[in-house]
């Protein structure tokens, strides 16, 4: 389902519209979606919000930016429309899995993004422990979204590269590091 920027913002700003549309999931998602609201190609707003929340536990935002600020969710959305087209279903199911797990640890939670951070971490840890294939996919996609070239939709303003100290100048002269400073 396409979420145009306009309807996304309309939902955010208008409870009436939301009730009208009876899309409570989208409403909840809209309130929590932190990245600039560009259009999603593949994800529904609700799925995007939950996947983004999960990615934000893989690479959290602390003193420095994380998956959210790197716009990893847009990387995944774009990937599912391009080189990872064949995996769309797995991600829709994955978002559903996150929601059902969320409801199990907190009956009040309508979405994964709703959960308190420590419960989000607990849900992901249990998926990892149970070797649920979607967890590995989520983890790898979150990391790729941090570190792949920004042209793929993530690594916004080179957030991921700055995080690890990689620099894409691609022309270097000595000294390359601390140990060859006198070489």
């Amino acid at each position, binding site marked *: 389902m396409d979420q145009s920027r306009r309807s996304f913002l309309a939902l955010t700003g208008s409870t009436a519209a939301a009730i009208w549309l009876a899309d409570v999931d989208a409403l909840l998602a809209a309130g929590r979606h932190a990245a600039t609201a560009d259009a999603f190609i593949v994800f529904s707003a609700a799925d995007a919000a939950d996947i983004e929340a999960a990615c934000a536990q893989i690479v959290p935002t602390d003193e420095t930016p994380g998956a959210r600020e790197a716009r990893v969710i847009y990387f995944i959305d774009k990937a599912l429309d391009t080189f990872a087209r064949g995996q769309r279903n797995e991600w829709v199911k994955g978002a559903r899995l996150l929601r059902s797990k969320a409801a199990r640890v907190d009956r009040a939670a309508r979405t994964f993004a709703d959960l308190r951070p420590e419960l989000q*971490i607990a849900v992901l840890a249990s998926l990892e422990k149970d070797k649920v294939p979607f967890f590995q996919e989520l983890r790898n996609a979150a990391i*790729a979204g941090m*570190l792949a*070239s920004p*042209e793929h939709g993530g690594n916004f303003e080179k957030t991921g590269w700055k995080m690890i100290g990689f620099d894409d100048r691609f022309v270097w002269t000595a000294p*390359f*590091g601390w140990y060859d400073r006198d070489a």
Partner: protein
Amino acid sequence: MPDHVHLSLPPLDQSTVQYAPDDAVDFVIVGSGAAGGVMAKELSTAGFRVVVLEQGPWRTEKDFVHDELKIWNEAWLTNDFRVSPNTFRATAHDKARVQPAILYGRGVGGTTVHFSANYWRFREIDFVEASRTGAIAGTGFADWPITYQELEPYYTKVDWEVGVAGVPAPSDPPRSKPYPMPPHPPKSTGVLLEQGAAKLGWTAHPAPLAIASTPLPGRGACIQCGLCLGFGCEVRAKSSSLVSVIPVAVATGRCEVRPDSYVRKIETDTAGRVTGVKYFDARKAEIFQRAKAVVVCANGAETPRLLLNSKSQRFPHGLANSSGVVGTHLMFNGGGTSLGVFEHEVNGFKGLVASRVVWDLYELDPALGLVGGGGFDYRFDLTPIQFATGDGLPPDSPRWGREYKRLLAHNYTRTIECYGHTSSLPMPTNTITLDPTVKDAWGIPAIRMTYQDHPQDLRLYKYFTDRAEDLLKASGAVRTWQRPVESQAFSVHLLGTCRMGNDPATSVVDKFHRAHDVPNLFIVDGSSLVTCGRGQPTMTIQALAFRAGEHVAGFAGRGEI
């Protein structure tokens, strides 16, 4: 984003002569990589009419990108497992499963486009090690029919005509000429290796690399971009066949390079002579190119596959395979890797892969009871995604979350891999055969690999892993760990599968690379190797190709084909 750094080099000429398929050219060469490129140059400059068939596209530096996702996702420079799968099993008793086991360059220039360009010569011992060591059960360990001395002039041709930078080390085998270019700077990895080696009583030498350290005609010097392994060079500094020998072949006006040409079969007549090559063009139309002789340079996996797929009434077990040796004695090289984290920034991601090497264990003390030997380098060839998804952090690290993020941020610039590159033994049971059921997208039977490392080799790999860790500790690493040693199931070195020898019963080609069974068929690539050296086979593959080119041109000139 400065995705490209390009010098204003004159464009590489891709306008080749065009031969008609019915025109029986002097030579069809299958493959345009390390060996195919050299053969194309040698035979066309000797005056022969040559067609080179390359399965991949003809890209140049203007097409190359620094985009790890594109490179790996799209198999952009390499064989595409999705359309050309293989199967793997450890032994003939196991069921072969579809899983990637080989990686090679797909495109004009072959694997030389994306390799790290470590150009170690083999040494005298590599050609006679079997007789020095004695027979080893379960192996086909054998001496070469040629010696280092016979190959030396051709190693020198590689240095000068392909382009190798370095400086002779005291332990080097004899050389007839110096290197044409000085060595590259050490980087922090090289300085640390020098310090660690000295502590252990060893010496680190500048690594011989097929990367220009000074500008060459039509080629730039290395700009230390940092994306070498896995990527094409954007300034023509890496001495790939694409920028070194193929332009020379094209310039003769006698060599036609045909990209996007997927060879399926070598045809023969009732007299048992090769008549040409059947291939699919980019539109999957089948074309038969006639030729007076064929040179197969498709690599140690694809070459035996092509021969086995070229069965006929006269050659029921595959072409040039009366011995049954085609596809056997597959070797990968081996090795052991340890990693270390250092206190200060190493920034291994900047610059070429390996700047210094340690050869003190090239040959081992017999008291150790190990066979073979090897050499070490320090490197950091992990791209950001590779590092972060699993290859770079210590094994006990969290795999996500705050602490994971902190480790990534701290370790990426401070981690070094110490690679111990070693020999591995040729075994008749390690093979490339045709899978009985799996086919590629063209309907051709796929490669089935059967491979298990010899117990002797696994001991050798462990020894080198331990020494690699010793080196890192001696260099002052804050923390070190080992990559586990296990039998290999994947390789980029594909060697030994059409071995060279004097006896037609135990080898596929003679010492001039002519198939024992077929007078006008030559095989020149990693498959020719009798032993695999110490982990860096490309320079030897190219030296063999220069030598073969000279002899094959001589045979053709004298009407002896």
